[in-house]
């Protein structure tokens, strides 16, 4: 917590220090300090829920950002976020943040307010290579809307997958190197920050109940606290990405050795004088992820692909025969996307996702194979001051999905209004269908300073 407060204080005073120090610095440094950029983005995001005829959220965010290019090859960047949700609906009361490491926790001020250090890193260019050290977001993958390789950073799930990924992705304290090889670029990652998906409590509007089905009735359950890895070195995640541009194709090969950001439920049976009972222990398990991406364009089409193979991934099973309620399996996830821009100022994007677990053991909260399809229609009007967009995602197996229409209007250079909706439908046990009662209209204001 002290780290967060200290960082926020630093973020506030750095521009002042930078300006005050100009008189004492040599000319070269003065030039760098004068390039210091401090900007702030403010957002008001509101949603009205049809079920129960009530407002679902009333968020207000302030996002200050500071960038100091100390020299041409060395810069510092910090990004903060002050957040309020006045209805206390997305994370009721004070979130316990048990999934988050001490160094990445948000500063919670009562039920409604919080502050978070979103990014805080130094970026060096050393010859042709880069070294980035600090709290940062690392984004992999080419898929829109669903994540396959974009799992380096965990997610705050207070709005399920509806929040912009830039907002919901939890930055981690990491070391990243980008090596410029002759024909390719090699990114190496070391992430000692043991932070995982921040899942809201059971009373939250978007608690993903489909992932945590209720145990059989009549059984006594004892749930232990979350068991979280906490060894800085041994429990760190590590990864590598090799990327290249070959004959018009952007290709990457990715590898990540990490803890799954979703906990699994280990189940043990015990008994006392009143009879047997289940001890459920939520804990994290490691996997190896290998995969890759490719993109290219052909005439009016662009094609995107992404595949991830999870080796030795641990799943919670709903099969009573499964030992400890857990089993290991390999899993493959893939997406193929086509973007068509043959209509002026428009984009039509279609994606197919496939997610297959090789073991036929019954998995808690999902089928062995899940297929999703998504369609995006986007069109700009009036010199891009108005953007109309609709996104639809459907699970082919269960038939559940969601549709998100949105109209964005750029009122002034630095002022945007957006009106939209999130419509969920289908099987209430499905990934999207579980939120049928959360269907809503949204109204957002974004103001840059």
């Amino acid at each position: 917590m002290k780290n967060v407060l200290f960082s926020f204080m630093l973020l506030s005073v750095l521009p002042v220090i930078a300006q005050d120090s100009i008189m004492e610095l040599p000319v070269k440094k003065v030039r760098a300090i004068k390039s210091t950029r401090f900007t702030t983005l403010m957002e008001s995001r509101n949603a009205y829920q049809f079920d129960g005829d009530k407002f679902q959220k009333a968020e207000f965010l302030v996002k200050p950002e500071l960038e100091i290019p100390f020299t041409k090859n060395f810069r510092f960047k910090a990004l903060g976020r002050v957040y309020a949700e006045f209805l206390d609906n997305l994370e009721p009361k004070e979130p316990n943040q048990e999934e988050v490491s001490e160094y990445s926790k948000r500063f919670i001020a009562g039920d409604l307010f919080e502050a978070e250090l979103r990014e805080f890193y130094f970026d060096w260019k050393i010859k042709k290579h880069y070294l980035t050290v600090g709290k940062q977001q690392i984004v992999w993958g080419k898929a829109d809307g669903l994540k396959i390789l974009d799992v380096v950073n965990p997610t705050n799930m207070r709005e399920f997958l509806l929040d912009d990924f830039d907002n919901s992705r939890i930055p981690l304290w990491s070391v990243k190197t980008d090596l410029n090889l002759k024909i390719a670029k090699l990114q190496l990652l070391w992430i000692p920050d043991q932070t995982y998906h921040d899942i809201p409590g059971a009373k939250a509007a978007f608690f993903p109940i489909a992932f945590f089905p209720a145990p059989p009735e009549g059984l006594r359950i004892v749930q232990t606290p979350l068991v979280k890895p906490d060894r800085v070195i041994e429990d760190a995640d590590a990864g590598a990405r090799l990327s290249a541009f070959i004959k018009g194709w952007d290709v990457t090969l990715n590898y990540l050795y990490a803890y799954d950001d979703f906990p699994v439920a280990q189940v043990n049976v015990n008994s006392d004088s009143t009879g047997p009972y289940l001890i459920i222990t939520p804990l994290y398990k490691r996997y190896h992820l290998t995969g890759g991406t490719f993109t290219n364009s052909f005439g009016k089409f662009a094609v995107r692909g992404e595949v991830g193979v999870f080796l030795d991934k641990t799943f919670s099973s709903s099969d009573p025969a499964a030992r400890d309620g857990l089993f290991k399996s390999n899993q493959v996830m893939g997406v193929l996307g086509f973007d068509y821009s043959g209509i002026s100022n428009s984009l039509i994007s279609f994606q197919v996702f496939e997610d297959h677990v090789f073991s036929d053991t019954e998995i808690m909260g999902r089928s062995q194979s899940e297929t999703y399809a998504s369609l995006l229609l986007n069109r700009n009007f009036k010199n891009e001051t108005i953007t109309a967009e609709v996104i639809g995602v459907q699970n082919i197996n269960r038939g559940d999905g969601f549709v998100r229409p949105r109209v964005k209007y750029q009122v002034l250079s630095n002022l945007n209004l957006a009106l939209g909706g999130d419509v969920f439908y289908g099987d209430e046990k499905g990934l999207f269908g579980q939120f049928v009662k959360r269907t809503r209209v949204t109204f957002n204001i974004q103001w840059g300073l």
Partner: protein
Amino acid sequence: MKNIKFPILAALLLLLIVSSAFKKPSSLPSGDEIVKNVNSRDEGKHLVQQFSMELIDKGGKTQTRDTKAYRKDFSDQRKTIVVYLNPTTVKGTAFMSYDYFSAKEDDQWLYLPALRKTRRISASNRGDYFLGTDFTYEDIKLGTKLSATDYKRSSIKEEAIDGHKCYLVESVPVSEKIGKELGYSKVHQWIDAEIWIVRKAQYWDVGGNLLKTTTAQDIKKVQGIWTIHGLNAFNHKSNHKTNLKFSGADYVSDVSDDLFSEESLERGVN
């Protein structure tokens, strides 16, 4: 006989007068020669400059953007990056293009900070307007150059623009398909006869209606290279205007080859 000869002579005389009026002066270079001169003008091997955009709608409402642009020529291609610095709501958005000198289709990318991802975009929509301006992707790509393959060109006459001797060149797309791709059926360009820069241009849409007029302003030498410092466009159909102001042109400082990559866009080009 006299009666017959007179009308024939009169007609021949009239034909002579009319044809001489429309005949280009013998000193007028051909369209292809002019294109060659424009395209061989020294633009430096690389360039870094800032440009601000004013986008003014028909009601007079003005939106502003500040950007920084990087360009570097390689043996077989030109690589370009345009990154938004302001306003905050679009800061970090970046466009990157590899424009091949051969007939190979160009490659283009758009980095969207809200997604923190780079999206490969089709380069075939060259007639689409570039990020809300009145310039198309093709206009931005060409910069001060002219396409040698998309148009048939003919020089029309000499005409002064802002007191500078210019050649008026008419360009017509080589095919209807190319015209549709570019969004133009005809282009008139007034090209400075001394420094080989387009000072003014008029564009007609595929329906033959006057579409837009662009004018270059404040052309002066920077580090020995003629450089445009202002470029305005007026769309006659929508009454929308775009004013670009260029500053800080630097042809000398090195531009790293590595800058022109997806990783660079994602790291943040400054």
